């Protein structure tokens, strides 16, 4: 407990607010998944997993590299499950077919997470550089699937635009736009090695600092976008699920 309190006091307030907001969004979306159809289960479970992925900031054992990498795996699984949900919804809009059971979504997600855990367990403890690689892969998948989800959401909206629920898909569009900015900005920094992790790594390894000083403007903008888009993403997810809940009540 003392360790946790110490960790909380060390955390950046902004990061803490972000985690709390993702916690709320995750709780709302997970609650939503329980009483609704399978496609909503995938989508809402995925958003709940984002919270788990983001919770490393308040995880007292986050200094463990293995556990830190597992948070990245959870984050990756989150976007895959969400995309699966939107894909199913899109298929439903085109064919009106609904298949499968909710339990399969829970079990499949759990299985992937267990497999991810096993992968980390049987391999050497990740180094800071490996953790950074995990983050790059996670962000790349998030950016790619966010774009794909935006397109799916656009097509779903066109198919059901006179239905009562259609406005919720506009909200989801906003969510994925913000997520794209959030994850995209971080990926941008990582690709050009302007991220904090790389700076720390290089400082430890050879004391050299990358060419970040030459691009302070774009680096600062990217960091700002990453910071606020992440926060707004969590807010928009929570708000979207509350709106969706009201529409479907």
């Amino acid at each position: 407990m003392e360790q946790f309190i110490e960790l909380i006091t060390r955390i950046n307030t902004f990061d803490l607010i972000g985690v709390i907001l993702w916690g709320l969004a995750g709780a709302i979306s997970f609650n939503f998944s329980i009483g609704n159809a399978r496609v909503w289960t995938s989508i809402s479970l995925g958003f709940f997993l984002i919270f788990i992925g983001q919770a490393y900031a308040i995880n007292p054992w986050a200094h463990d590299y293995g556990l830190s990498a597992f948070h990245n795996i959870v984050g990756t699984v989150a976007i895959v499950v969400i995309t699966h949900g939107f894909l199913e919804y899109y298929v439903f809009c085109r064919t009106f077919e609904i298949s499968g059971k909710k339990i399969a979504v829970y079990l499949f997600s759990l299985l992937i997470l267990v497999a991810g855990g096993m992968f980390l367990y049987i391999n050497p403890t990740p180094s800071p550089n490996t953790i950074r690689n995990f983050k790059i892969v996670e962000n790349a998948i998030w950016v790619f699937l966010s774009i794909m989800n935006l397109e799916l959401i656009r097509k779903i909206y066109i198919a059901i635009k006179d239905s009562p629920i259609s406005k919720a898909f506009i909200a989801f569009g906003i969510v994925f736009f913000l997520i794209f900015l959030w994850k995209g900005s971080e990926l941008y920094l990582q690709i050009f090695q302007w991220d904090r992790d790389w700076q720390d790594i290089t400082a430890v390894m050879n004391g050299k600092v990358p060419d970040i000083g030459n691009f302070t403007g774009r680096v600062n903008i990217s960091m700002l976008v990453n910071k606020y888009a992440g926060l707004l993403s969590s807010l928009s997810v929570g708000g979207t699920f509350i709106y969706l809940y009201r529409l479907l009540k």
Partner: protein
Amino acid sequence: MFLLPKGIPLFENLAVGMLKLPEVISKLSAGSFTGYASFVFQDSTVILVFEAGKLVSAMSEEQNGNRQTGFEAVSALCYRMVGKSGGSLNVYKLSKDLTTCIHALFQGEILYKAQELKLIDIKSLLKKIGTDRMNGCLRIYTDDRSAMIFYKDGSPLGFFHDGSQDIETSANESQKIAGLPGAKIDLFSTHEAGRLMGLDLLEVVNIQNIWETAVAQKRSEIIKINKAREERQKENIAAKIAELEETVKSIVVNKVGKVGRGIVEKELADQGGNACLLDETKSVKFLAGIERSAKLLISATSLKAMMELLSKTITSARIER
């Protein structure tokens, strides 16, 4: 229509619909019957004349005066008996002589037909019969009574009235009928009894075959009519189901949006087409499918209202059917 005096009744007013002509003829023939059987329908009368069990003559007359005799008359009788539900059979016993006279009458020629008695000079007519030494028959009748006067070589041979079995000598009944309002006469010329063909129609006409053909034709007509009716019913049902399908679609589209039309079409296809709406089990499955899909698009409250309306619409359509 042609009405003979009644003779001695053996059967009267038997419902023709219950009878089979081959059986009737077979019974009369086996009983060596002498007399006539009169089949009275709404628009025609058929008379079969028997002499000692032989079918010596047959005559059919329609309301419009069209006459058929012999094979044609028997054939027409078969088709009428099979085809019409009404009609009655009267069988009257007559003497051989009277039967011969009637047989001769059916083979004779019509000289005057349905002449109003009050419009003709009956004395002149009777005189002409005597002068011409006619062989023939003068029939005096109203709508429900009839009498006949037979002539041989211009001289009255005798009378045939209702209730008589043989040729009578009294003219009272004929005079009574002649005095009735609306009385009419027919005058027939006949051949001499010796020149009449003594043919038994039963030997030349296969009544069983004609009857079976008539029955088969009637059956085929009934099948055709039933088929046409079934097709009409099917078309009516198909139109009603199509109408119900449109109603169901409009209810779903109204709540769910345009996408609802596709949902209904898909669920109907899954249940084997729109006929499932009238099937209790399949319609339940159809509604469950609609509910499952609509759940992804509308609120629980709207869903409940929509499902109630759909269920009510489909149930009432099923009851109406």
